[in-house]
């Protein structure tokens, strides 16, 4: 009997995500997003998700909102940062009352995820005290601590059914390694029942055994090999973000927000519904551009 290989296709992995689930997505702002799974979720028409976004969510989360997948968002921030200060689809959905925001701070989001990881009903934090967050989210309760009597916020456990995490490399048993920032990925993975890992490169188990100190996610439920799997975002250690595609997104989403949905529909058609699979997506982006994005990283320090 041999060890089970947990690699799956994008399609098979994304099929694990059902309507109504609580799904966490990793990375932060412009890096390390499990994009092939996100695109497949949109293709599959997944609905009514409670989405747990990165503590600083980027336009990946905005895209899922714009595609109509999200009913409730748990995230303290959705921004295009240097390109646009807020997520256009996020802003639109909130202002129109089409999506519920479970208001939270970064610190409280992490404490909620940690509570789930630790199997606790809640964790306390000082963040939120003195702000309007507990008024906007009645599930976050101010209370006096049982030892010193200090005023703290109690945040209930935030428990994803699935966490979608992108790493630079993994073996076929689900041992993943981040070659740059880990962001909140590890805590999301620890909190979730099931971890879907996308990796830019599938490596042998021997590579992992030579560098066990770099393994950041142990034994993910399934692993999907997706070269340039974070495109159009950066993958820390391997390639930079594709500003051109991101600008295209911002323009499309902002035009949708201001009343003209056509460009956004065309963006979805072009990048999501059009390509038959992840390889077709890469061909659409083009080899020359991908090579340039990889070259932007090649003079930087590496993992070990």
């Amino acid at each position, binding site marked *: 009997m041999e060890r089970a290989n947990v690699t799956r296709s994008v399609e098979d992995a994304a099929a694990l995500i059902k309507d109504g689930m609580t799904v966490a997505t990793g990375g*932060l*702002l*412009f*890096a390390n997003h499990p994009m092939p799974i996100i695109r497949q979720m949109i293709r599959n028409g997944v609905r009514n998700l409670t989405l747990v976004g990165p*503590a*600083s969510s980027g336009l990946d989360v905005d895209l899922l909102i714009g595609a109509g997948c999200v009913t409730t968002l748990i*995230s*303290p*921030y*959705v*921004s295009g*940062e*240097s390109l646009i*200060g*807020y*997520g256009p689809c*996020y*802003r639109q959905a*909130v*202002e129109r*009352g089409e999506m519920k*925001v479970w*208001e939270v*701070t*970064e*610190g*409280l989001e*992490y404490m909620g*995820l*940690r509570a789930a990881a630790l199997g606790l009903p809640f964790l306390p*934090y*000082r*963040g*939120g*005290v*003195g*702000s*309007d*967050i507990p008024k*906007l989210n009645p599930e976050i309760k101010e209370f006096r601590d049982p030892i010193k009597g*200090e*005023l703290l916020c109690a945040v209930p456990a935030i428990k994803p059914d699935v966490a979608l995490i992108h790493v630079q490399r993994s073996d076929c048993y689900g041992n993943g390694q981040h070659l*740059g*920032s*880990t*962001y*909140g990925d*590890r*805590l999301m993975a620890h909190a979730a029942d099931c971890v879907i890992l996308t990796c830019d490169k599938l490596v042998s188990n021997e590579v992992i055994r030579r560098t066990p100190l770099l393994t950041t996610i142990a034994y993910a439920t399934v692993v999907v090999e997706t070269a340039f799997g974070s495109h159009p975002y*950066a993958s*820390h250690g391997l390639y*930079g*973000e594709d500003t051109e595609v991101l600008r295209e997104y911002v323009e499309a989403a902002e035009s949708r927000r201001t009343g003209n949905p056509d460009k956004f529909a065309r963006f979805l058609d072009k990048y999501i519904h059009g390509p038959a699979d992840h390889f077709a997506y890469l061909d659409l982006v083009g080899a020359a551009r991908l090579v340039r994005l990889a070259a932007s*990283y090649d003079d*930087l*320090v590496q993992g070990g």
Partner: protein
Amino acid sequence: MGLDAAPYEMMAIAIARDLQNGKRVIVGADTQIPHAAVMLAQNLHAPDLKVIYGANCFWGNTRGRNPDLYVSSGAYQMIRSAESRFDHPEIFHRLWAIDHFFAGGIEVDKFGNVNILGIPDGAGGWKFRAAGPVGLPDIAVNVREPYIFSKRHDRRVLVDRVALNSCPGFLDGPGGRERLGLWGKGPRWIITPKCIFDFHPESKRARLHRLLPGVTVQEVIEATGFEIELPERVEVLPGPAEEELQLLRSIDKDGNLRVRPK
């Protein structure tokens, strides 16, 4: 001196001068001015300024390394000056040992409270929704002395009372922080393209501390939506030293800080 710095450049220089060697700071999302300030300080008088690149989860030091001013605070290139990676949740460890953070928002009020959530419509919905509070509500009640900065100085930003408080300053004035048991001293400055406010030690209200070169008191009063505490004499911030401006522009190669404020 005869050197002219653009307002955003002057803001970065003012913050850099104020950052003492050995202090610990976090630079967060979408904050080119503070990011330039900490790099400038590290390369001038504060080589032991300890900086967390908050959006990238690195402790970094740019000392003597010809740094770039990255357009995004999440720029992957920051690993060039990184000395340590950490899991982002750990940024909330030792916030009590962090001296400064840099907070911005859509509204700042006279007690140094910041709104980065948005403007409610009064009927349970939103007139305008901003990106969200990020970690500011956490940082504001744990870090020693955050700086508040705004790239705009007008009556829409500098208001009497924030519509929503998503980054507690001195709350409703004297004793506000103490009543809730918040950690940290409260905000150190509000810095804008026109001036620096500090806070009156008793009233906890924003007090005009320094004018940026070329700005008048009257101009500040007119552009500010709250009643300003005025000291007897308002000093003007000294213009940039040659070394400061030269180094800043070697950092800000693309001239991001030379654009005119809106």
